[in-house]
Every structure is written in structure tokens, then in C-alpha cells.
């Protein structure tokens, strides 16, 4: 097989599954260790360096890291990464002196951003310290975008949102509140060096079925995002007793739980598909069920029933689905009485304010054509990010887009091509303190995932803003951090030192190492100590070993990073070395670096 050679940062990063799965590439193992050491401020800053909003994301993130977590492969459940992020944020203390700051002398370039949501704020966060003047145009009167208007306060307290948005704005961004951009052409005429569009996907989808506008239906049928915003800004403070929520995504979960708190005592969620095919995150669905939300699956609204000018309910088609829930047929109908109906069937982009003759091409679904790497539109100098770029995604994606867009804006403003981007850089640092001592806790703790404590049900409905989830207790944190396998502490092998004594092969608790004759990949795989499970993890293949010319093969899939191979190695051919990554950021010089 082809030797892996000296693996580069990209190889080693793949081993850190959580970091690889996170769009913003947050250094999870590092902050988990810092939380374990009680260094919450540092843990917060490690988070903030990549995801900008640790307190917000520690509550609301869709957690792409957790399904990827190695712990989930060797144990029942992944590490509660997201909740440990929240712990770091909540206990960080005052870190204001360690946040990035804008230089006293600006660099003379002006950047405009449309919308003051996570994407624009991430752009401002990266560009302000480089001396850019960033002007953000926002229709609302406060920063945050959809984080403020559509995430209910019982999931994201306002003080958390205020603190983390202020940390960016206070760096020196000029936010023009109450000034939605009505025309991109006019904004472009204002002579900004670059424009970033982070205006989100602010329009909830409506449902055009009979009765939608009959009688008083318009007053009692609400569209998710508008309704959530209206509740968030206290324009709406009540809803009828019986509420139907149409749709079963995460927004639907926010809608039904909000309704439950402002007067809806009989709230039912209506889903088209069977439960196994829901789009909502399992934990959000679980929270809703816990709060007594009803669930009706395999039903689709046929018409709103209005009698004597009043909405009385919804007539639903009963659906029968094939096995993979791709095709359905109507098998009957149900009538459900309702005082109010909330439509949470998705959200759309809306760019009525972008003239179509500006050189900005639009593709399907009325979305702009945006380069997935540079975030550039087809018009040089105009960049997109967040939900505005590729449709509705999670907050952490918006942040990742913001970082990339900031790199592009910086390059654009320096008259450099946006395609010559700074690359991921990394180095390996040995974690050995003595023969059998490491700088990290290398033992495998079989403890199970700690459950997030929640406020008692009766207290949740007292006030709209009572946060449901609580921080893990100190004892839970102490256990949960030990579940992290420190995947960033990499097994590093130096073939030239190996005497082929088999010590590492024997001691590996998951049988992940093999010394065997070289040959075609299929033959080598057939000779592995434990047959590979076929995961997405890379295989490490060494150079031929000095004494027999055989090769060392490591299957990274189940490695628990216990370091026993390195402790048992008589010649220090194995070492445990931490991968220190430097993420590409605006202002960095583009160069490719390998690690050794």
C-alpha cells in the first residue's frame, strides 16, 4: 500500500471527528479539557475563535459534532459537546480584556453588511480587528437577526444573546438599526469597497389551501417566523386555547412550545410523514413531548374550516406512506378543531430588494449563485453568507460562511484573487511528560452521557422567558469531560525507530494496530488484527519497517487515544502529539504547510 508518509494537517484533522464535522471547525477536545481544568474563560475563547457565539450555540446549535463524535462509536452515546460549550460560556467570567479589538488606526477600507444576524456579525468579527470600517444595515432595532426573532427566549435567554452580539458590535461596527436595505443598487452606489449580504431566509412559507383567507382565518392562521418574531418583540402575547402547528421541523417545535406558554393548553403538532422521518432534532422533539404537546402524524391539511365567519378547525387528509416515506396516498380525512393555527412548513429566501441587473446571477429557488468556498456572488465585491447564500441552515453554518466571506473580502480589498486562500495550518506537539505520563487524562472512563437538567414543568409556563435547560452540575461536568477521548492528541509513528516487538499491537485495547507484509490494499485489509468496520476514518500506513520491511497499519476508526501504544513502545516510535491547528482567517497569508 502507498505509505501515508508524513501526514498533513488535513489527515490529522479527519481523526478529530467533532472538529471535522463542525462547519466552523471548533477545537472541541481542547475546550473540553479546559472546562475539565476549570479554565472556563480560556475554554470560551477557544470556542469564540471559531464559532464567535459560544453561549448562543451552546444552547441552540444543531450539533453536527455530536453524531460524528468517536465516543458514539465506542460507547452508546456521544460526548455532550454542546452542553459543555454552554458550561464554558456560562462560567467564563469576564473575558472582555482578551477579546479581539479594532486597531486605533483604520485601514481605510469600508465594508457594508446587510442584516445583523450571525453571518454579518461573524464577518464584522473578523474584519474589524484588521482595521476595516464595517457598516451593518438592520431592519430591526436590535442585533441578532433570526437568533433574536425566531428562537424563543425559553431556549435562548436575551442576556446571552445581547452579550455575544454586543461583543462584536462594540468592537466598533456601525449598525444602522431600523434601516432595512431597500435597494442593493443604491447601496452599491454608496462606494463601499465590498458588500456582504447576510440577510437570512426571513420568510416563513404560507399554505395555500381552501379557507386560508375566509372569515377571520387571516387573524388566526399564523406564519411561523412572523409569529415567533411578533411574540419575541411582545407584539403578540396570547393565542387561543386549542392550537394546531402544521409542520415538524425545529421551527415547528419552537412554535408549539411558544404557543404552550402564551395560552395554548391543547397544542398539537401535525406531521405529514411518520415519526422516523421527522426533520426536528430528536432532543427538541423530546422537549416538546415532555411539555405535553400532542403529535398527529401522517396527516396533511386539506382546508381550513370556517363557520359563521370564524375559524373552527382544519380538515386533514390521512396519508399512507410507502416504506421510505417517499410517496403517499390519501386514505381518509380527519377534522381537528382549533382556535389558532401556526404554519411551520419551512422558510424561504426573499430578495425583492436586489435588482436583477446588477450582475448578480440568481439560480433555482430564487437563490443567488454563490461560490461555496469564496462565498462570492457573480459580481466581484458582493458576497453572501448564512441563510441568504444557500437557504436555511444552522447558525454555526452562518458563522462558517462569515469567516470565509471575511477572508474573501479582505483579499478583494487588497486586490488579491479571492481564490488564493490561506490554508489550514497545523503542527504536532508531543504530550509526553515522562515515560508513562501525559499532559492529558488518557484513561478510558466508561461513564455514560450525562443528562441535561431541566426546569420543572410547572415552572416553565410561568413566564415566557424561563430557560428550560439548565447547566450540567459540577459533578456532571466532571464526568462528562472524561468521556471525551482527546482525539486531537494524535498517535504519531516514526517507522525508522520501530523494532517490531509487537508491544503496541498487543496492548491496543481495540485491536487497531497491525504489523504485516505489504501488499495490495484489499490483501492488507484482510490481514488486519480486527476487521475494519468500514467507517470514514483514514488508515495510517507506515513506511517499510527497518528490520523486516513489513508495514505498520493503523485503523483510526476506533482508536480511543489512550496512549498505551506509546507507553508500551521501547523505542518511542509511537508518541502522542497534540494537533495544534491554525484555522485560515482573514488577514492570514496564503501558504500550504504540512506537519511533521
Amino acid at each position: 500500500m502507498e505509505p501515508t508518509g508524513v501526514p498533513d494537517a488535513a489527515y490529522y484533522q479527519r481523526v478529530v471527528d467533532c472538529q471535522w464535522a463542525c462547519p466552523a471547525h471548533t477545537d472541541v477536545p481542547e475546550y473540553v479539557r479546559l472546562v475539565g481544568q476549570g479554565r472556563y474563560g480560556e475554554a470560551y475563547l477557544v470556542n469564540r475563535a471559531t464559532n464567535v457565539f459560544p453561549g448562543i450555540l451552546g444552547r441552540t446549535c444543531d450539533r453536527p459534532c455530536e453524531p460524528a463524535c468517536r465516543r458514539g462509536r465506542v460507547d452508546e452515546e456521544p460526548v455532550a459537546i454542546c452542553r459543555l460549550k454552554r458550561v464554558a460560556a456560562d462560567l467564563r467570567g469576564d473575558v472582555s480584556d482578551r477579546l479581539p479589538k479594532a486597531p486605533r488606526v483604520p485601514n481605510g477600507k469600508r465594508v457594508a453588511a446587510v442584516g445583523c444576524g450571525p453571518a454579518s456579525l461573524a464577518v464584522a468579527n473578523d474584519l474589524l480587528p484588521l482595521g476595516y470600517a464595517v457598516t451593518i444595515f438592520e431592519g430591526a432595532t436590535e442585533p441578532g437577526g433570526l437568533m433574536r426573532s425566531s428562537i424563543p427566549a425559553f431556549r435562548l435567554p436575551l442576556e446571552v444573546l445581547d452579550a455575544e452580539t454586543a461583543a462584536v458590535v462594540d468592537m466598533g461596527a456601525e449598525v444602522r438599526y431600523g434601516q432595512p436595505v431597500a435597494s442593493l443598487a443604491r447601496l452599491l452606489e454608496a462606494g463601499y469597497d465590498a458588500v456582504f449580504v447576510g440577510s437570512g431566509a426571513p420568510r416563513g412559507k404560507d399554505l395555500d389551501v381552501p379557507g386560508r383567507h375566509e372569515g377571520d382565518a387571516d387573524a388566526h392562521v399564523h406564519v411561523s417566523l412572523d409569529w415567533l418574531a411578533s411574540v419575541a418583540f411582545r407584539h403578540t402575547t396570547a393565542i387561543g386555547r386549542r392550537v394546531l402547528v402544521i409542520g415538524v421541523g425545529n421551527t415547528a417545535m419552537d412554535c408549539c412550545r411558544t404557543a404552550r406558554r402564551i395560552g395554548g393548553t391543547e397544542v398539537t403538532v401535525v406531521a405529514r410523514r411518520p415519526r422516523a422521518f421527522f426533520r426536528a432534532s430528536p432532543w427538541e422533539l423530546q422537549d416538546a413531548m415532555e411539555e405535553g404537546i400532542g403529535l398527529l402524524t401522517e396527516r396533511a391539511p386539506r382546508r381550513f374550516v370556517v363557520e359563521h365567519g370564524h375559524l373552527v378547525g382544519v380538515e386533514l387528509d390521512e396519508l399512507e406512506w410507502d416504506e421510505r416515506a417517499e410517496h403517499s396516498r390519501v386514505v381518509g380525512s380527519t377534522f381537528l378543531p382549533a382556535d389558532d393555527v401556526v404554519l411551520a412548513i419551512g422558510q424561504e429566501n426573499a430578495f425583492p430588494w436586489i435588482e436583477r441587473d446588477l450582475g448578480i446571477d440568481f439560480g433555482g429557488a430564487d437563490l443567488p449563485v454563490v461560490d461555496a468556498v469564496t462565498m462570492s456572488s457573480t459580481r466581484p465585491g458582493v458576497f453572501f453568507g448564512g441563510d441568504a447564500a444557500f437557504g436555511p441552515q444552522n447558525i454555526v453554518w452562518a458563522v462558517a460562511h462569515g469567516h470565509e466571506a471575511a477572508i474573501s473580502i479582505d483579499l478583494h480589498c487588497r486586490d488579491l484573487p479571492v481564490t488564493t486562500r490561506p490554508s489550514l495550518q497545523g503542527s504536532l506537539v508531543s504530550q509526553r511528560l515522562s515515560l508513562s505520563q501525559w499532559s492529558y487524562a488518557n484513561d478510558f472512563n466508561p461513564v455514560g452521557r450525562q443528562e441535561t437538567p431541566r426546569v420543572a414543568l410547572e415552572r416553565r409556563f410561568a413566564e415566557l422567558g424561563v430557560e428550560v435547560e439548565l447547566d450540567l452540575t459540577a459533578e456532571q461536568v466532571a464526568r462528562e469531560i472524561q468521556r471525551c477521548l482527546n482525539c486531537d492528541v494524535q498517535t504519531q509513528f516514526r517507522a525508522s525507530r520501530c523494532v517490531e516487538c509487537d508491544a503496541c499491537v498487543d496492548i491496543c485495547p481495540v485491536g487497531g494496530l497491525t504489523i504485516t507484509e505489504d501488499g495490495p490494499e484489499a490483501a492488507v485489509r484482510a490481514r488486519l488484527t480486527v476487521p475494519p468496520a468500514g467507517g470514514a476514518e483514514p488508515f495510517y500506513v507506515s513506511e517499510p519497517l527497518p528490520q523486516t520491511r513489513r508495514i505498520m497499519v493503523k485503523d483510526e476508526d476506533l482508536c480511543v487515544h489512550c496512549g498505551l501504544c506509546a507507553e508500551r513502545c521501547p523505542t518511542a516510535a509511537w508518541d502522542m502529539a497534540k494537533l495544534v491547528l491554525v484555522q485560515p482567517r482573514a488577514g492570514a497569508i496564503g501558504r500550504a504547510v504540512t506537519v511533521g
Partner: protein
Amino acid sequence: MPSIAKPLVPRAPLPRNALGLTVRDYEGPMSTLCAGCGHDSTTAALVQALWQSSIEPHRVVKLSGIGCSSKTPTYFLRGAHGFNSVHGRMVPIATGANAANRDLLYLGISGDGDALSIGLGHLCHGIRRNVRLVHLIENNGVYGLTKGQFSPGADRGSASPRGERNDLSPIDPMLLGLSLGATFLARGFSADKVHLVPLLEAAFAHRGFALIDVISPCVQFNNHVGSTKSYAATRAREVQVTDLLAPIAPAAGPPLAGTVPDGGVLDVPMAGGGELRFRSVPPGYDPTDRTSVAVHLAEHAGRGEVPTGLLFVDESVPDVHERHRSTQQPLNDVPFEQLCPGAGTLDAIQAAYR
């Protein structure tokens, strides 16, 4: 010594043997030997062989004397019986235990110091009696536990880390065993499990005394340039004379005992059922012919080579129980009245001699 015990990872997908056990069920507590010690790899080979042979852990007795090697029984098969005897006295203890219960597998682990100096006399008589014992010599050429003095396994001319040369002749347990009428002689290398594990499996099935000389380098005192028992020197000197092709399986056809066909494949029927299928690497090497094996080994030794593989096997010799026609039952299964029939019976026996 490692900082942590080898963790049990809940979902590591380990295969199971006929008893439903994984290889981890054949392990023991963490070794306290030096990192990279050959003995730990030998232990791992034993774990592998016992697991592959689906031997029930509680049917095994681990025995040893004194030395680094003699610490190793602790580090595998935590469910087995064990006896750590005084220096060199492992074979007599095993002989006695075997006399009391012939149903168990006796696994003796010794070093070249323990077995070839203080215990040499016992080893010789154990071989002569053909006690059913798997006797491993973890041979590293030094007394590791007392800081690396030359042992009886050290080759003439081999150097210590400080450069002193050993000028005494080594005791070759294989040549010694041949001269004493041994019935199973094999040599392996701790860092070559592909060949060591089948030798161990074959030894478990042997009818009598199985002596296995395992070259097992001492990383601390005998793994340097100038040593003849380092990892590198062993690899350079090793000459494989037989290769076990198939694990022990019940005989499919008529056994081919004692004949080496043209292809060099040899099937040896084992007393416990099944047979061993070997390939002679130098065509014509016949591990059932005591005289030609002696010649081969002497020639290899003269060239400074280390022949490995199944060197000699003879399944025709009865073990100590068969020769004494002693009870088939373990003594703990014999009813007390029968085991200890009382003074009246003794009187009757004595009267018969008056």
C-alpha cells in the same frame, strides 16, 4: 509500567470463539515488565492461542518459578488456576499437580535462567517422565530481574551492554531435549506470532511434555548491537525449518504419520484428536526422525543460526499417567472411601507382603 490498565471499550467489535469469549476474556492484569519486553508479546501469543483453541480458562493451571518470565503467568488468563513456585521448582510442582488431576491443561512458564540453571535437573526429569505439561522457556540470554548477568541461554561471544563477552557455552534446550527423549520440541520468536501461536496450539494438544523455546528479547539488558538475542539479531539468525500450515482439526483422512511426501507436507496425528499439518521449509526436514533432527540442529548451531518451527514431535510415547496406569479420574472426583480406604485396607496390603 503503563499509567492505566488496558481499558475495556464497550463497542470494540471483537470476534468470539466457540465458547462465546473474546480474546479480552483471556487477558490478565497489566504487565509490570519493561515496555517492549519479549515476554509480553509471548503472553499475547498465549492469549491468542488459548482463545483460538477455545480452552476454558478454569481448565488451565499456570505455573512458574522465579524471574521476569515467571512473573508473566499473572498477566494472562485471569480465570485460571496458578502456582508461583520457588526458583527452578516449577516442574516438580507441575508433576505433582498433574498427578492429582490429569484433566487440566498445565502451562508452565520459565526463563532460561530458571529452567536451565537452578531448575535444569527438574527439567530433565520432567522431559524423561513425559509429564503432560506445556513448558515454555522465555529465552533472552540474561538474568533480567537481577540486572542482566549472562544466563545459561547466552550464546558464546554475545556481549553485554558494557561490552563484556560471554565465554561459556550455551545450553540449547532443544538439543538437550532430544538427548533426553523429549516428545515435543519447538522454537519460536516472541515478535513472530504468525508462527508462534500455531506452535502453542499444537503444544496444547500434545500427549506429553511439550518444550517450547521462545526467543524473547530483553529490551533492557540484551537488545543492543553485540547481543545475539536482540530483536534484530534474532531476525537475522532465524531459520525456519517447519511451518505449521493448518491449525489442529479432526483428521479428515488417513494420517500420514512419519512420512514426508514430495511437497514437504507432513501430517502428524495428535493424541488428543485431530492432526498437525506442517510444511518442511528445507524439503526433507522430518520432525519425526530424532536422529536427522539432531544432525540438523547441530549443523544450524554450528553456523550460528537459530532454527525455528516445530523441530521434533513424537506422539507415540505414553505420558506419565498412561505409563503408571494411574486413575483416569482427578483425585478430587474419587470418593473419599476409595481414595483413603482406611487402616484395615493398609493392614491387608501389608499382610500380603509378610
